[in-house]
C-alpha cells in the first residue's frame, strides 16, 4: 500500500493528504532533506486534521510518506522546542501517536517502521546525546531532537 492510500483510507485524516511535503509549513519542510526528493511521496498534517476532534489531546504534527526499497514507509515528525522540559510532552505525544495508529489508523500503522523523529524548532537544542533525557527518548524509540532531518 502507498502512503497516499493509507492516509485516504483513514477517515480522520483522509482529506488532509498533500503531495510531497506540502502538508508541512514552509519552515518545517525546509529542514527535512532527502537526497532524492522524489522519494518523499506525500504528507499529512495530523495535528491540524485532528484539532477539532481531539482539541485537548497531545497531538502529533506530521506524517510523511517515504519511498524506501520497493515500498513506502510512514515517517513521523514532531516539531517542538528541544529542551529537557519538553521531554514529558514529547513522550505524551508519542504515546498518543502510537495509540492513534493502532486504534484509528491501521493502514498507516502497517507502513510504520521505526521512523519517529523530534525536529527542533529554531531555538537552540538543549539536550545532549549523553544525557539521561536523550536515553529516555531512545528507550521509547524516539530519535532527536534534530535541527535537520536527513531521511534515508
Amino acid at each position, binding site marked *: 500500500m502507498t502512503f497516499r492510500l493509507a492516509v485516504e483510507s483513514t477517515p480522520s485524516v483522509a482529506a488532509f493528504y498533500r503531495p510531497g511535503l506540502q502538508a508541512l509549513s514552509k519552515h518545517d519542510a525546509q529542514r527535512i532533506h532527502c537526497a532524492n526528493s522524489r522519494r518523499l511521496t506525500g504528507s499529512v498534517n495530523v495535528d491540524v486534521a485532528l484539532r477539532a476532534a481531539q482539541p485537548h489531546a497531545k497531538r502529533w504534527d506530521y506524517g510523511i510518506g517515504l519511498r524506501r526499497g520497493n515500498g513506502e514507509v510512514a515517517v513521523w515528525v514532531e516539531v517542538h522546542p*528541544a529542551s529537557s522540559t519538553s521531554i514529558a510532552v514529547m513522550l505524551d505525544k508519542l*504515546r498518543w501517536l*502510537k*495509540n492513534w*495508529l*493502532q486504534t484509528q489508523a491501521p493502514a498507516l*500503522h502497517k507502513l*510504520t*517502521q*521505526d521512523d*519517529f523523529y523530534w525536529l*527542533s524548532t529554531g531555538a*537552540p*537544542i*538543549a*539536550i*545532549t*546525546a*549523553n544525557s539521561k533525557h*536523550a*536515553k529516555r*527518548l*531512545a*528507550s*521509547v*524509540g*524516539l*530519535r532527536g*531532537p*534534530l*535541527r*535537520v532531518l536527513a531521511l534515508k
Partner: protein
Amino acid sequence: MNITSLKLERIGQIQTADISFGDLTVLVGPQATGKSIFLQFLKLVADTGYVHDQLRKHGIDWKRSLPEFLDVYLGEGMRELWHNGEQASTITVNNEPIDATDLARPLRRSKKALVFYIPAQRVLSLANGWPRPFTAFSSEDPFSVRDFSETFRILMEQELGRTDALFPKTNRLKKEYRDLLSQHVFGGFGLRVDRHGSQKRLVLRHTDTSKPIPYMAWSAGQREFVPLLMGLYWLLPPAKVKRRGEIEWVVIEEPEMGLHPNAISVVLLLVMELLWRGYRVCLSTHSPHVLDVVWALRTIQQRNADSTRLLDVFEVVKTEPMKRVANDVCKKKVRVYYFDRDGWTKDISNLDPGSQDASEAGWGGLSEFSGRVNDVVASVVNHPQLPGFDQ
C-alpha cells in the same frame, strides 16, 4: 609574552593546530592526535628560559641541538616529531613565526615559570607516598612530568611537609570545595603526612588515631587525585594572595583521570576557582563531563542568565564567595578545539548538539558514541513491528 594564539604545523601527528586561546581553553580529540604535544609546546614557548634553567640546574646538556633538546624536553625519541626541509615544522605565536632553533639556544635563564603544567602522568610523581625529585626520573621522561614532580616535592618540603594535615586544610581551599572533596574523593578520610620509621610519607587516615592507609592501598582515583590536589595547593597559595608568583597559565591534562563523575565535577569547580583567581586555564580531556560544564557555562553566558545557575551545575551551596566565583567565571571567554585524526584542529566552541558539523554535534567524538547507542536503542525498541507501541 602575552600569548593569545599558537599555531603548530607539521609537528608529529599535527598537520595544523591553530588555537586562539580563551580564558578557558579545552582540547578534545582521539588519542594520539597531538593535544599533549601542543600543550607542551605552549609551555615551551612561554617558558623557554625557565625550562633551560631547570634542565641545566639538574645537569642536563643538549649541546644547543634542537633534536637533542626535543628528546630532553618531550621525552626520549621525540626528536622524530620535528621535520626539516621543504615541509619543515613551524611554530607561530600571536601570528608571528618563531625560529625553533632558538628554543635550543641558551637564552636568558629564568627562575620563574608562566605556565604551571599538570601532566596526565602526574601519578608517577608519587613513589611510595612521597614526591620524587626531578633527577629521580630518567631521560625518557618528559620535562612536564619531571618538573611537576619537582614542584610537588618543593611544596612538600618547604610549605606542607611540616604540618601533619594536608586534607582537609583550611587555608588552601574554600570550605565549599573541601566539603565536596571530602564527600566525593576522600570518602571522609583525611590526607596526612606520616612517618614510617624515619621516612615521611603521605597516608590516608579516617581519624587521627586510626591506622594509616599507605599510598599503594589508596583507590586508583585517590592516587590520581592527590598529585592534582597538590598542584592546586601550589596554585592556590594561602593568605590573601590570589595567584602564585609569575604563573599566568595552568595546563591540566585529563583532569578526569581515574575519577567518578561526581569527583570530576569537584575538580571542574576547582577549575572555576582558578579562573576566578585570574589564571588562564587549558585542559585536555576525554570526558564529556568536562564539556557538559563548558556547554552549561556558554549557555548561561549566551542567555545572559543568572550566573549562580552555574553553581546549580555543581550542586554547591550558593554562599557569597561562591556567587562571586560564578559571577566572575560567567564573564570569561571559553574556547573548545577538536584535534582530528588527520592532524587538523577545528573550533567547536558552540558545542551545538544540533550542529550539521558532526565534530561539533558529537563534541569532538565525546558524545558521538552515546548518540549512536541512542539510535540503535531507538531502532531496537521500534522493531520488529512496533513492540515499542506498548510503552
